């Protein structure tokens, strides 16, 4: 019997199934870096908020305009910091992914990576727009939990098109996002946990598993 051929057939089937449906070149290193950016941004946000609340607490005038300050001056800064972090994380992610795809000889812009990106982007953009609505109606406390929830859903959706572990990162972010809804005002700490610590852990796991 030609047993070896059959074994070969099975492994060929498995390789083709995963290669044709999953994008393999996501980089662990970029996950770690994205986490570090998030922690830096969260630290900045923490001090910025502390500054405003100190000012608010110290004077009557401060108290009166504290709300105003927090909602216009600080919120603007914090949003800028968040957007900058996002942009930096995306750039780093793109850079390392391109590098890894080249090394693995995987085409960067193939039907699978397109599907991955599409499935990731839809919940993320929907979440982003929803956050703008929250800002519009001044539900500012809900912005941080909402970003975590939608980011978790986006990851979960994208996980069908890449290797396994991203699903757990998504579930973890979704969960702390929901928990964060019960602790309004502590948004940045949940952000630091979700976007910072979780990313770093996920990046390290991914790096050890696939990059070495």
């Amino acid at each position: 019997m030609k047993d070896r051929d059959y074994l070969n057939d099975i492994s060929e089937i498995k390789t083709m199934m995963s290669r044709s449906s999953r994008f393999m070149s996501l980089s662990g290193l970029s996950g770690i870096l994205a986490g570090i950016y998030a922690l830096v941004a969260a630290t900045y946000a923490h001090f910025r908020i502390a500054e405003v609340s100190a000012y608010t607490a110290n004077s009557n005038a401060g108290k009166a305009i504290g709300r105003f300050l927090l909602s216009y001056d600080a919120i603007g800064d914090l949003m800028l910091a968040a957007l900058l972090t996002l942009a930096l994380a995306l750039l780093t992610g793109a850079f390392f992914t391109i590098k890894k795809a080249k090394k693995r000889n995987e085409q960067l812009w193939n039907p699978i990576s397109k599907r991955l990106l599409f499935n990731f982007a839809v919940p993320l953009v929907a979440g982003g727009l929803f956050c703008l609505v929250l800002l519009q109606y001044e539900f500012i406390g809900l912005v941080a939990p909402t970003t975590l929830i939608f980011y978790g859903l986006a990851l979960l959706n994208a996980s069908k098109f890449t290797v396994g572990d991203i699903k757990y990162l998504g579930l973890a972010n979704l969960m702390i996002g929901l928990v964060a809804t019960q602790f309004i005002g502590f948004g940045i700490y949940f952000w630091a946990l979700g976007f910072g610590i979780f990313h770093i852990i996920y990046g390290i796991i991914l790096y050890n598993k696939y990059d070495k």
Partner: protein
Amino acid sequence: MKNIIQHINKAFDHRVRLGIMSILMVNEYADFNMLKELLGATDGNIASHTKALEKEAYIKVKKSFINRKPNTRYSTTTAGREAFSKHIEALEKLINP
């Protein structure tokens, strides 16, 4: 033993055909170039093997134009999915009886 061999499908008895079926099993559809790139085969090779699978009614072919360029999309038929699942089962039984 004879029973198992019966399920080993001659139509899948080639690396490229096996590859085409594997790809189509996990994807809604795949176009000609995707198959070519993933399998590292020539145009003629892919064309003749897809034709063979089409003849068995295991895959469907849909031709269209995208930006005026011809585009050929392949997807599995129900019969093709069943036949290929049986084929995989038979292979697994042969390896681990």
